[in-house]
Each structure stands twice: as C-alpha cells, then as structure tokens.
C-alpha cells in the first residue's frame, strides 16, 4: 500500500512538472482544403508559476499581407465556443498588431491545437468583431509557397 502511494505521488509530481513546462508551437496556416497561405504563427504557452495555470500566450505572427515581417503577439489560452471557431474546445488566442499599419484593425488569431484549425477575427468599427477567415494548419514553419495569399486577405 505504501509503495503504491509513493508511486502515485511520484507520478503526480512528474505530471505537475510536465504540465508546468512551456509548450511552443509553430503553425503554418492553410485553408480548409490544405491550400497554402503565406502566414506562420509561433506561440509559446506558459505559466509564470503556481498558482497560475499554463494559460499565458506569447509569440509572433509572420507575414501579414505576405510582407516578410514578424509582428509580436500575445494573449491567453481559453475555451471558446464551437459557435465561434473552426474547431472545438480550447484555443491559443494570439492578439497582434500585424495588420494595423495596413488596415487599422484589431486582429485575433485563434489556434486550436487539437483540431489543427485556426480562426481569424478582426474589427475596426470600435464596436463589433467580425469573422474574417478560418482554416487548418500544419506543423512547423514551412517555406512560403510562391503566390500563396494572406490568410486574412479575402
């Protein structure tokens, strides 16, 4: 019995340690049919330490309007209704000024790691938040496909 408890404690300690470790992701965006966009997102999901769960998100968004530039991004990991995303469950939400200099918009990228999907919203009427596009992603930073459009360019 004592051995079992000891084993359980060890497993729990390791589980906690593992969950506290940063997760880094890199996503190359594709449309729902797998066709290439020119954009890549890097996301670090982390916790600043107990008692805060691993819900902080930092990172960057690459290639707004295929401009060859990186833009900072930040946000949180949280559950989003399937009525608001292409996918279901938790998303890594990256808010970035990526398109502001071009379009004066607030931009949010919701990445679902379970469904391998993303959803983009933006707003510039100071009031609403509008669905711009959605699709799938592949792991890692793939070379930009020549002529591939921007994920937010409709």
């Amino acid at each position, binding site marked *: 019995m004592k051995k079992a408890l000891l084993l359980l404690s060890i497993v729990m300690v390791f589980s906690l340690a593992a969950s506290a470790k940063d*997760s*880094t*992701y*890199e*996503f190359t965006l594709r449309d*729902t*049919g797998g*066709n290439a966009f020119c954009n*890549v997102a*890097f996301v670090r999901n982390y916790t600043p330490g107990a008692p805060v769960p691993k819900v902080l998100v930092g*990172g*960057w968004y*690459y290639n707004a309007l295929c401009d*060859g*530039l*990186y*833009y*900072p991004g930040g946000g949180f990991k949280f559950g989003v*209704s*399937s*009525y*608001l*995303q*292409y*996918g*279901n469950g938790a998303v890594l939400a990256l808010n970035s000024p990526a398109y502001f200099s071009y*379009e*004066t918009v607030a931009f949010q990228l919701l990445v*679902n*790691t*379970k*469904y*391998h*999907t993303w959803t983009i*919203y*933006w*707003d*510039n*009427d*100071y*009031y*609403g*938040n*509008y*669905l*711009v596009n*959605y699709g*799938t992603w592949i*792991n*890692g*930073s*793939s*070379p930009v496909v020549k002529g591939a459009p921007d994920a937010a*360019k*409709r």
Partner: protein
Amino acid sequence: MKLRSVALVLVGVELWMGAIGSGQSPAKAAPAKSSSQNPLDSFKNFAATLNGGMGRDHDRKIYRSGNLLRLDFDRGSYRIVDLEKGITWGVDANTCSQFMALDAGSFPFSAFRDFKFERVPTAEEETIDGHVCTVETFQLTSTDEHPRTVKMKLWGAKDLNHFPIKIEVEPQGPGANPKAKLEVHYSNVSLSAPDPSLFKHPVKCTPGGAPAPMGSTPAPPSPTTPKAPAGGTTKPNQ
C-alpha cells in the same frame, strides 16, 4: 382594513395612470424629423460585386434575399449570413461550419442593428462610376450605456432606386482614429431578387464544423524554424 385596501388600490391606480402620462409626454416632444431607420434595411433584394469594407473584399459577389446575405469565395466555397440572427454558415468542398458571428463581408448591412440613425439633410449630388448619386449622411448613435457615434455617408445611385453604390463609415468622437474610416463599394448592382437556391446550405452544418481532432499536441517546431525576433517587427532570417 377594507377602506385601507381600497385607498391603497386607488393610490396605485393613480400612480400607474401618472406613469402612463409621463411616458407619453416625452414621445410627443421627441424630434421626429431627423430620426430615421437604417437606410440599408430598404434594400432587401440585390446582387452586386463588393470591394472594400470590413473584410477588404476584392471583387466578391454578394447577394441579399431578405435577412440572408451570400458571399462567394474561391474554389466554389461560399458563406451565408443571417443578418437578423447574426449567424454565418461557411460552406466549402470539405466542411460546413456554423458560426454565431458575422462575416466581415456582411458589413455594414449587418452592423449597427441597435443604433439610432439620424439623417443629416444634404443636397449634394455626385457621379460615381457613371451613376448620378444623391449623397446622404447619417449620424449613428449606439443605444447602450456607453454611446458611440459613427458617421455613415451613402452615395445612392438615382438609376438604381438610390442603392448605395458607395458607403463610408467613420467612427466619431474624441480619439477616434481617422484611418479607421472604411469605404465600401458595390458595382454591377441588380435589384432583382436573387435565386433562392443561392441561400441554401447543407443540412449538416455544425458549429465548429472542422475535421475530426488530430491529436492534442503538435510536433515540436521544425529545425528550419526562423527565430522569433527580439522585439518589434524585423525582416526574417532567411
């Protein structure tokens, strides 16, 4: 005891009547001349080509039938927006997804539903794309606790029953960024009712209608991963 109850009832009735009276007075005094309905609600049926707007759309076909809007996308995909319910159905060869959110291309037909519209009279006329247009300006005010104001300018083509072939939307108020002004253009306008079959979507169109989950943890970044910049925007290391 009975007399007291009767007196209370009478006082209550008097207060109720008073409330009705006081409710009527402001309505009589309200200036009706400048307030109006959303002018975009007048165009329940049309087909056009959309450029600009919230989605920065480019040569996108747009159709309206009643409360439904349809926007055509590449590779035969399309989106249908219910302006009343705020739902978007996204249909493509692979999936049909239902969103409780408005597609950006539905702006401004889908926007400012709860705003008060006040028409600012103007006698301006301007020719846009060969159409002689009357120019109308509206001041929009939200009806919530934190009123926001928006200026909407419409160029209504005289030969198209004043359909707005150009719309400008500009947030107002202190601190509003003038660069946030949006322009929307509609060309190839037809005011005939579009084919009703254009507004159908697959029966199975579920929220979040993505393919099946593919596992909870993506693989680590590839070795060719460009390094995140130290700050601000930089050129990639390629």
